[in-house]
């Protein structure tokens, strides 16, 4: 039948779920409406702002433009999954806080997920790499400077840690 519900299995922030959903449900709707994970934001709905960015199998994607059916069997991380359960912020979250890298904060979850994925993928991104990989995350408040600085500080810290 048209629109009949289907079952998917998905791991979100380390927890496994079996869910019965309508095929038209997007990953964003799944996270926000079914799982109550409202940290992931929606600002445009048409794939053009990056506020809804989450990580699927290590890749940053825009949850508003991925069908929930397509993450069947996959691992999803949202902003709620970055800090440890007992309240320790991730190194990027710390850096965002230290650098005042956010204002209204509506774009911040998306930016955090994009930059988290980038720093997983690239050991030592250049300024150009960082800007290119953050291109899909629009922000109206900050003018980007402080949050690019936050990301760079993490790259720097990691380098120093290595030494």
């Amino acid at each position, binding site marked *: 039948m*048209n629109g009949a519900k289907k079952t998917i299995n998905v791991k979100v922030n380390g927890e496994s779920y079996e869910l019965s959903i309508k095929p038209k449900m997007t990953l964003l709707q799944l996270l926000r409406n079914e799982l109550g994970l409202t940290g992931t934001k929606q600002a445009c709905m048409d*794939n053009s702002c990056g506020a809804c960015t989450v990580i699927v199998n290590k890749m940053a994607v*825009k949850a*508003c433009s991925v*069908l929930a059916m397509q993450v069947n069997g996959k691992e999803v991380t949202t902003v709620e999954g970055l800090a440890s359960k007992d309240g320790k912020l991730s190194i990027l979250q710390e850096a965002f806080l230290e650098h005042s890298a956010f204002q209204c904060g509506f774009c911040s979850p998306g930016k955090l997920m994009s930059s988290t994925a980038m720093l997983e993928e690239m050991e030592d991104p250049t300024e150009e790499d960082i800007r290119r990989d953050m291109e*899909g995350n629009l922000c109206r408040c900050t003018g980007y400077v402080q949050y690019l600085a936050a990301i760079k500080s993490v790259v720097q810290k990691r380098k120093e840690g290595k030494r």
Partner: protein
Amino acid sequence: MKDFEYFSATSLQEACSLISQYKDVGKILAGGQSLITLLRQKLISPTCLIDIKGLKELDYIEFDKKSGLRIGALTTHRAIEKSSLIQEKYNVLSEMEKSVASVQTRNWGTIGGNLCSADPIGDPAPSLIVLGAKLKLVSAKGERVVPLEDFFTDYFTTVIEPDEILAEIQLPPPAANTAVEYMKFATIEAGIKIVSTSVAVTVEAGTDVCKDAKIVMSAVAPIPLITKKAAEMLKGKKLTDDVIEEAAKMAASETDPTTDVHASAEYRKEIVKVLVKRATKKAFEKAKKA
């Protein structure tokens, strides 16, 4: 968004039989980066989606010295951008991919989906056409190979039949003494392309003479536009600034752009002149060193 039925194909064969069954009401879903927005805006409302994104058999980048490069249709933009093989042998593709949408879209969207969307401002088509790409289309009935330059027919329209699936993009081995340059022009750095162009220049080894050239443009016509006359003007000539400038003017006269919120038709033509000139010069310089 309207409800639809959903099938996740487990093999290309299954996908072919599903699409032949549902061809009138169904749509192929790859990364959905274009499709989902269309569904949400109700610009199309298929009653059935056949999801091929999971087909590993269409996700590959392979190279053979004789037959050249084969890219599976489900290869993501990001995989092409990051492929060391492509960076080494077809660098222009890797560079071009950097300017396709955003990382998130490149991570999930596929090269096949991009070509099948037939968006006149799409980035990959010009460079792929210049490189001589062919497409392998398969259906339950069999398969056929179509040169990419014959693939597009109108805005958002291609020769692909409703029951066909794009399976592979094929490129010949890189030509000797040849360089390809891709250039784009937008208001903001990663904005909507007002014009983009890909130019291939082959030089007579050790000379300043252009042996062969191909110029393809996007955003200036309903489909990627091959400016044949302009390319002809380069062939057999020493590529001086004047020669290049004249060819660029010719390229502009071959285009038939439209006016939209990003630029007027007249301005697009002016930009064509500049981009073709700059890209040709750059390709020429590189080809001499190649």
